[in-house]
């Protein structure tokens, strides 16, 4: 990803962008993110005014609406603290997507400044803080879904390194792991047939490796896959990476 990105400060103060999805549905993933960061000695600030990263409108092509929301995020997360996001997708929006939609805007500089200090959580832990292994204990076979917006970023190797280093945990490989789960935001509802077919195929591959839990850095993909699996009468257990890390700490009495 961006080579000009800004490393964390010595005092480990960070800001948390919880994401609208965690704000609305997945409170525990956001909570686990805070607990994990604090375990690493970070002081977590939560700007109350935060809403969304602007991606829904960006992907929908409505860039005026998206820019309005991004400008709000720039204001909300002003300063020079790293911004940690428990989502590869929202992180990609702020590091890459915004640069595209602000290409010709006067405030491109401010938007990029936010992008340079935005980190996906696993990437931050490994490449920002230099933590390469994870303590505690987590019993289970993990199927790790490589969410698509992490392509080309440091997130996937980082998350895999952390997960596979936990005592008791193993990462189970599955077929076509580079393929999309079919979520794609509005794609999932304007192309429901294709989206569901993609997700069903993904679930078949995942089930074939008989994991105990399906893990991702993005709740959006997990929401799609868990929703599909449940509707089909074959529910699967899903956890955000932060929840696995947090549970490992708990199981090891480190929290």
């Amino acid at each position: 990803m961006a080579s000009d990105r800004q490393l964390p400060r010595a005092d480990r103060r960070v800001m948390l962008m919880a994401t609208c999805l965690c704000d609305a549905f997945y409170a525990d993933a956001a909570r686990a993110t805070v607990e994990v960061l604090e375990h690493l000695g970070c002081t977590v600030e939560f700007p109350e005014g935060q809403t969304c990263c602007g991606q829904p409108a960006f992907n929908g092509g409505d860039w005026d609406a998206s820019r309005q929301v991004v400008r709000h995020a720039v204001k909300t997360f002003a300063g020079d603290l790293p911004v940690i996001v428990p989502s590869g997708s929202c992180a990609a929006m702020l590091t890459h997507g915004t640069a595209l939609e602000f290409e010709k805007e006067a405030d491109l500089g401010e938007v990029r400044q936010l992008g340079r200090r935005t980190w996906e959580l696993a990437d931050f832990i490994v490449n920002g803080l230099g933590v390469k292994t994870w303590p505690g204990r987590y019993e289970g076979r993990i199927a790790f879904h490589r969410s698509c917006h992490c392509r080309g970023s440091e997130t996937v190797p980082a998350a895999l390194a952390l997960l596979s280093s936990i005592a008791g945990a193993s990462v189970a490989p599955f077929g076509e792991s580079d393929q999309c789960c079919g979520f794609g935001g509005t794609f999932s509802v304007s192309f429901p047939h294709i989206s569901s077919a993609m997700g069903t195929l993904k679930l078949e591959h995942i089930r074939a490796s008989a994991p105990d839990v399906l893990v991702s850095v993005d709740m959006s993909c997990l929401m799609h896959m868990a929703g599909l699996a449940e509707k089909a009468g074959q529910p699967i257990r899903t956890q955000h990476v932060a929840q696995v890390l947090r549970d490992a700490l708990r199981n090891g009495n480190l929290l």
Partner: protein
Amino acid sequence: MARQPIDQFVEGISAEKRASVYLGTKVTHEKRDKLLHDHYADPDALRRLAGEIKQHVVENLDTYLPKVEAKLQSNGVKVHWASTAEEACAAVHGIMKARGATKLVKAKTMVSEEIGLADYLEHRGIEALETDLGEFIVQIDHDHPSHIVRPIIHKSRKEIATSFEREGLGAYNDDPETITRRARAFLRKKFLQADVGLTGANFVSVESGRLVIVTNEGNSRFSLAATKCHIALVGIEKLVPRDRDLGLFLNLLARSATAQQLTVYTEFISGPKAAAQPDGPEEMHVIFVDNRRTEVLASECREILRCIRCGACLNVCPVYRQVSGHAYRSVYPGPVGAVLSPLLEGDKFADKADLPKASSLCGACNEVCPVNIPIPDLLLRLRNKGKREHAPLAEAGSPPMGAWALMASSPAAWKTALVAGKLMNVLPKTWIPIPAMKAWTDTRTLPEWRGGEFRKWLRQRPRKADGTKGSPQSHTP
């Protein structure tokens, strides 16, 4: 909510067809990936380099095109310029008329599909026969290719055998070898009767004026060996600066397109037959086709002109794998087509404004593209263009986000909505649109609403004593 045409199309495809397209694309993709990584320490570096070279060409066409024209002319080639599809077809027809020619054999070229050449010539009493096996089958079926490299990926061998029987090419037999043998016997006669051989070109070297044509069936070579006149239809973006660039491009193309180290036939043609050569065309024409490529060059999506038509993005694309090529209503399907086809429509962009939306933006296409085209970025730009221009197909299914944007830039409103669960009433219209809620819940359940819970936990949890271990602090800037 309005379901997209492509999503509706997919329901009409039989399970058998879907399975075969899926398998065909998956196998090629996986072989390609293995081959690239077996042979090169860093294939991504090669893709980036190839992308930079083609981007350089695309941005310097104004100097390269006159240069290659001069070179071709000094090699004895007649150069023609066609700014539209119509002009390109007319140029071919004009050359044939001047020779009194009525029969043409054609190697596979996507530009000829793009300009509708076969129909144009047939209407004027000229036989224009496809000699690539796949394209030949498409032609006898009056069908359209559904893949840019494997035109009949959508056809089963049973269907092909039936077509052959219908065309009088022997009794029903669906053994692939028999089918190939029969086509070959039929085409052989046609090659020998033809006056003109028409090909495309995968690359043209500006340095030497060499045309490079790759095939796996040798039909292009046969077309040129048996005829007296060679016409090459070439998109203006097909140039590479130097002969030595070809090493990079040929290696990437064969691996990306068909998972081969090198295609079976790779021809380098620098002009008509020389006096000392016993066979070959005495006359050679290159028709450079624009057909809106300069408009694409001037657009915000010019990177798509780097494309070398390898089809790797189709093979990896999860949407293409489900819907196959005809769903795109275009000569160029799949990810490359979702960008290129609407652009090639020019002022009829709106007719295909839905294509850029037929993607989960997963980025697999960019990851495999041998010239590293940022296809997802281009899809996003075209979605934005569709919205800006109020193209109905672009707006269908993704309504204006003004209300959402207002909400998402007003913290007080956002928080109230979160706690009251009213966010459901704003989020849904946009990101899970309410009319689309059914589209979601038909196949998936929705998670439980927990709006505001995280914020409440953060506010209410006991503070830690040591201070260093992150007492949560909230601030409102």
